[in-house]
């Protein structure tokens, strides 16, 4: 009886001790959470959300054609202008190119990442990853200029084709040149997330698929590809949105019909001085990306994340 009582008391002491230590821990942790969250939240709200909101509002203003001053009355004239005239074809060209670049990078990145994650030895995989990431250290402009020298009339590509007795492709300063350059420059942004997704697939799932009678091809199609989808979507968000907003590559390797959305915004702002119209044009890629993410969510691409 005595020992029972003693035990109960000691348990109670422990309990209350535990509770008080929990309380004394909870109080500063709330401060700590707030202190940790404030800087990134402030950064996000002030620099990102507010500037985005400002841009959206600006797109509803207009510019006085005589004075060049911004008039702060709300109007939809900019948005109407964006959906008429030359702009729809520019938007269409940009989206088409971004989609083409994304598909190209998926086609190249998936087998490459598959070899890195599932075929190569860890040593070789590390070397391949370094090789993929190394070009990111080189200047964007250096890489674009490298492509100019490859694709231009006297460049390496034409030279090679001529020496093989084939007609010169003459890709310099065309939309094809833009497609090649973008696909090359954004490729690491596709390989890395796809590699991450493929590496996470447990080997036993592949064993299970073979065990149930599936061929390698069936396994890739029905197990590997669906499980790599979040990585492919993550990569495609990079390749698609980066192409959507770029204006340097079209300027340098593009030709007569290579104006993209980014160039249109750049020209409207710096040549035309029409800030509200530029803002309205900038709304377009945002809307496109929102739609894109919505479709990705509908395809359950984020569920396995």
């Amino acid at each position, binding site marked *: 009886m005595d020992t029972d009582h003693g035990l109960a008391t000691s348990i109670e002491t422990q309990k209350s001790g535990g509770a008080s230590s929990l309380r004394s821990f909870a109080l500063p942790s709330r401060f700590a959470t707030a202190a940790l969250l404030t800087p990134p939240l402030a950064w996000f709200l002030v620099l990102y959300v507010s500037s985005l909101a400002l841009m959206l509002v600006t797109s509803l203003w207009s510019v006085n054609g005589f004075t060049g001053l911004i008039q702060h009355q709300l109007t939809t004239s900019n948005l109407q202008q964006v959906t008429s005239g030359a702009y729809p074809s520019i938007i269409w060209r940009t989206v088409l190119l971004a989609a083409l670049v994304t598909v190209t990078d998926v086609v190249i990145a998936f087998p490459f990442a598959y070899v890195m994650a599932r075929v190569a030895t860890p040593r070789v995989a590390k070397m391949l990853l370094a090789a993929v990431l190394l070009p990111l250290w080189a200047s964007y402009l250096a890489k674009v200029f490298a492509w100019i020298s490859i694709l231009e009339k006297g460049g390496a590509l034409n030279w090679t084709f001529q020496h093989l007795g084939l007609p010169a492709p003459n890709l310099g300063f065309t939309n094809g040149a833009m497609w090649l350059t973008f696909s090359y420059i954004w490729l690491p942004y596709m390989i890395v997330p796809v590699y991450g997704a493929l590496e996470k697939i447990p080997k*036993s799932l592949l*064993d299970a698929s*073979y*065990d*149930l*009678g*599936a061929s390698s091809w069936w396994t890739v199609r029905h197990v590997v590809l669906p499980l790599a989808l979040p990585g492919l979507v993550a990569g495609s968000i990079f390749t698609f949105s980066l192409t959507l907003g770029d204006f340097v590559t079209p300027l340098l390797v593009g030709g007569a019909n290579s104006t993209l959305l980014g160039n249109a915004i750049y020209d409207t702002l710096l040549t035309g001085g029409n800030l509200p119209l530029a803002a309205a044009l900038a709304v377009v890629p945002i809307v496109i990306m929102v739609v894109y993410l919505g479709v990705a969510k509908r395809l359950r691409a984020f569920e*396995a994340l």
Partner: protein
Amino acid sequence: MADAAVEIRDVVKHFAGNVVVNGVSLSVEAGEFFTMLGPSGSGKTTLLRMIAGFETPDAGVIELQGRDVTRQPANVRPVNTVFQDYALFPHLSVTANVEYGLRVRRVPRTQRRERAQAALEMVRLAHLGERRPGQLSGGQRQRVALARAIVNEPAVLLLDEPLGALDLKLRQEMQVELKAIQRRVGITFIYVTHDQEEAMAMSDRIAIMNDGVIEQLGTPREVYERPASPFVARFIGTSNILTRSGTTWSLRPERLHLDLEGAPSATLHREVGVLRDVIYLGMNTRFVIDLDAGEEVIVVRTNAEVGRYATFAAGTRVAVGWNVADGVTLDAAVI
């Protein structure tokens, strides 16, 4: 005579210079519940993976239903596996997981649905077909993995420690259920485990493996009552191993008689010592005795007769007795 479900002859497998399976031969009859039991590193899982086709033997032959499959890839062998981590496809529903093997073999949709439904009913999960594996408990996932394998009606079902991740109570329930399912479907089961109780509870025959070889192969009763080596005697249950005048004996704790020193004895052999520990275990009491001859001996008596031992406390001088029929002589050279 019909062909054995699985016939293994002189199979050898090395990994990185180490012999993992060292010349194993065995034969599993159709419809048998066959268990490969052993500690980790004994080669049991490697042997199972060679039957499944995930590994190729360095030497030896594996036959399924009389056909040599030694070089056949996993996806054409008439076997299916229940994996230790279940290996359910996380992006597919429970029903789609179970239908996977049927889809691969292009079984028509309606037939597929019916068979998957029947398999899920057998493991009592028919109501969870729309769920994803991530929404199931460990025990439920285990049963889905079983249904996914059985639905293909394989000649042999391979189970790689399928209950290892479950808690004790669930594991015991699943043992009963697995055995019942095996009887009902009549498929040959080859079961790998390191848990000797699990092996005893379900198996028709057990192969006890150690260091890449089979130490003993027999029914649960045979391997327990007649262990062939000190390793088996120690690995299956508890055993007292004593060497007396050149012969090594294995004596099960429940076969030993316990008396106060000097009490009249009914047993042929008799040794005296000091009772060191009395451990009450609910159903049984375990007595630890230091024999004067030097060894430690464990005696287990059921508590139904505990009144007899009421005065036995640590420090009491006792006598441990046994008859020839209670012990098994082991090959002394193996020790």
